[in-house]
């Protein structure tokens, strides 16, 4: 008989209007790495939240070592030896690494904190598993990789036996991912049982022993990884065959649409500039992609380019016109479209209706406003309905739906409809597929390629290397606010890109074309 560390049997969890987990069974063997695969919204997070005690299931039971257990809160989970590295780290930014590790399980003597032994234990653990951290470093000053190691140490410090990794590779460079895989393997070899949540097939193939697949809240099946292929896993996850690669013809670059010369943008957080002396060009009919790890100045770069933040120095030319200090609306009417990184903050007014969001950049045009300054509601409704149909934006109440009540994918479609229908010269897209499922990603990629083929300049910022490799005609790597490399996607490997993204390699790049 198999030895299971944790069994989740027939788990059902309902939320108003949706069954997030429908009779799901997941069995984790002792000492194995078990991958949990599924698209966004497949119910992975809900299932893990149940295991970690954030939610109570409406049906089903959880067994630890064959015995039935109740997990009512994270404390219970911890007592059972279950630990989790959350996708968004649960670290207090102004605390040190050590303080974060001991938080919640502090040792005290006479009411005072005792950190000496804790430090000893942390150092031992970090040596044993090759998790290098500086216990006295403050979280906000260390790299994402080290933050993740802190999270792993947090679990080990609590002597957890069952370790959940929730999308741990999303924030890492290819090199860091390799290190993490090695750590996970060594943990499993030590007898820890690991649940590895992901939607990246390559990682599953590399590190996992078995894989369970969820789709739309339902349990699809569990397979031995050595007997399966990425294609089979992908088909199980999506329910149909998807083309993971984007089909596109070779680019035919035309005139320069965007010409940035020596742009610098000040940082809000430190004295150093967030964007340093960046020069680049985007031509009609090409997709230029800025690759890099989150937080290397991409956000500030886009803020500077779109006018959300003033640039410190440099020149931005669009279609030969200097737009460096142009107000945002002027930039937008003169041919810039911007699909922002944070669709809730900069993309939509969440409490406005879908139709109002759709005309957000055009309401002042005579088409939508009469000569007395009143909005032409009928015209707006008509226009919104046209776009809703054309871009297949789905929502509960059509154009009157509040943006807040729409799904992420449809919110993004609304933004894309608005930005593309403006018929821009330059389309800026920042992380356009973040948090979307495979179907929506496919759609958005197609739209971007279509814009390129229609002769627009497309500037894409992405943290996903797959997306970069698939879409870009030209790749620029940004590291600590500088462009440190320029590549053609068919002449560079993911590993090579990773080295540039991590700052261990760089080349001299200028606007030399």
């Amino acid at each position, binding site marked *: 008989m198999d030895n299971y560390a944790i069994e989740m049997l027939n788990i059902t969890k309902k939320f108003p209007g949706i069954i997030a987990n429908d009779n799901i069974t997941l069995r984790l063997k002792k000492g194995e790495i078990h991958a949990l695969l599924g698209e966004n919204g497949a119910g992975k997070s809900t299932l893990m*939240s149940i295991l*970690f005690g*954030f939610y109570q299931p409406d049906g089903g039971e959880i067994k630890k070592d064959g015995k039935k257990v109740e997990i009512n*809160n*994270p*404390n219970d989970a*911890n007592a059972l030896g279950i630990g*989790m590295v*959350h996708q*968004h*780290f*649960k*670290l*207090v*930014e*102004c*605390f040190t690494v050590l*303080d*974060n590790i001991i*938080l*919640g*399980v*502090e040792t*005290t003597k006479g*009411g*005072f*904190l005792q950190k000496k032994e804790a430090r000893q234990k942390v150092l031992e653990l970090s040596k044993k598993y090759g998790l290098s951290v500086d216990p006295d470093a403050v979280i906000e000053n260390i790299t994402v990789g080290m933050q993740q190691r802190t999270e792993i140490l*947090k679990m080990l410090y609590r002597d957890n036996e069952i370790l959940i990794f929730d999308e741990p590779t999303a924030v890492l460079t290819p090199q860091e991912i390799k290190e993490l895989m090695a750590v996970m393997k060594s943990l499993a070899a030590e007898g820890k049982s690991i649940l590895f949540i992901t939607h990246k097939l390559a990682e599953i193939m590399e590190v996992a022993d078995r894989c369970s697949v969820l789709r739309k809240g339902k349990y699809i099946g569990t397979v031995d990884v050595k007997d399966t292929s990425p294609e089979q896993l992908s088909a199980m996850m999506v329910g149909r065959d998807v083309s993971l690669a984007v089909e596109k013809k070779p680019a035919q670059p035309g005139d320069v649409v965007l010409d940035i010369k020596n742009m610098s943008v000040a940082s809000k957080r430190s004295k150093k500039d967030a964007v340093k002396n960046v020069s680049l060009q985007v031509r009609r009919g090409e997709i230029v992609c800025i690759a890099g790890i989150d937080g290397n100045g991409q956000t500030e770069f886009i803020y500077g380019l779109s006018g959300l933040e003033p640039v410190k120095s440099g020149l931005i030319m669009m279609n030969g016109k200097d737009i460096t200090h142009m107000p945002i609306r002027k930039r937008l009417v003169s041919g810039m479209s911007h699909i922002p990184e944070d669709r809730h903050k900069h993309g939509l007014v969440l409490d406005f209706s879908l139709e109002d969001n759709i005309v957000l950049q055009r309401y002042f045009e005579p088409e939508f406003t009469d000569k007395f300054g009143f909005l032409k509601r009928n015209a707006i409704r008509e226009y919104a309905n046209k776009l809703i149909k054309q871009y297949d934006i789905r929502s509960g109440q059509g154009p009157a739906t509040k943006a807040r009540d729409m799904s992420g994918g449809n919110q993004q479609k609304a933004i894309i409809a608005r930005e593309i229908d403006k018929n821009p010269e330059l389309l800026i897209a920042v992380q356009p597929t973040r948090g979307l499922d495979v179907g929506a990603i496919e759609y958005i990629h197609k739209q971007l390629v279509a814009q390129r083929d229609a002769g627009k300049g497309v500037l894409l910022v992405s943290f996903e290397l797959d997306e970069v490799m698939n879409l870009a005609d030209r790749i620029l790597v940004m590291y600590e606010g500088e462009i440190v490399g320029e590549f053609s996607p068919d002449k560079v490997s993911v590993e090579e890109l990773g080295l540039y993204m991590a700052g261990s390699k760089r080349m001299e790049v200028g606007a030399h074309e």
Partner: protein
Amino acid sequence: MLLLIQYTLIFASVLVLVALGGCFSEHSGVINIGLEGIMVIGALGGALMMKFLGGEAPAAVVILLVVLSSVLAGILCSLLLGVAAIHFKADQTLLGTALNLLGAAVAVVLVRAINLAEDLDNVSSTIKYGEAKKAFIIRIGDFEFNWFMLIAFVALILAYIVLYKTKFGMRLYACGEHPQAADSVGINVYKMRYAGVMISGALGGLGGLVYITAGVSEWKFENGVAGFGFLALAVMIFGQWKPVNIGLAALLFGFFRALSNVYTGFDFLLSLKLPSVIYNMLPYIISLMVLVFVSKKSRAPKAEGIPYDKGQR
């Protein structure tokens, strides 16, 4: 000169107590701009107890009971904020404002009712407590030492130890910075926030008592506490939510407040021939200027003001 030091210390004591109160509340994640209202209610609690005790009871008993009643009054008042902000997740800025209005109004209504019941011709909102107040003061030569100076100093040291050296402090801090993180390691965020708010009530109430006993022997509750709750907030921000800095900031602000009481004793200040209102305005003007320059760089607890919702992660 001695008088200036004496007043500086006593007003600094008020500011230290109240600002520390704000500091605890905000480190737990709840913005407390209702400190002004809490001070008034705390002052009322203390004043009523002093009125009740009169001049007969031994000093130690008076100190204990009066402090206790203002602390309790303060806690009770802060719980209004606590329940609404933590349990019902209401907007903390609005709550604080409401608390300020409520505190002053409740105090006036109560005191008037009490005064009227005692004497039908007395419609004032003043409480006299000159006799009982003597218990707090020890004369050392010309210097009037006030026990509250010591209490404030002890509170400052305790606050430092609690916040930085104990388990409670570390957890409180975590709740104000990243409540989801605290929750995920099994800390009850709601409990910690209640604790933070109640400590701010206790210290705020006590601060109110100290303020009304500083220098006068009766208090007209229509005056509230003259914006000292807000001044304390300025001290807290200037002190960057850190006890030691708060202590220093309180001394600075206390000094300017004291100046308006005693500037007539300094010849060179008198020779400037500035109207007294200028001195009265000084602490408030300084606080305004300080905030303008400091607030841009200030680092408030990250999650303060955001009601914690378990479901949202």
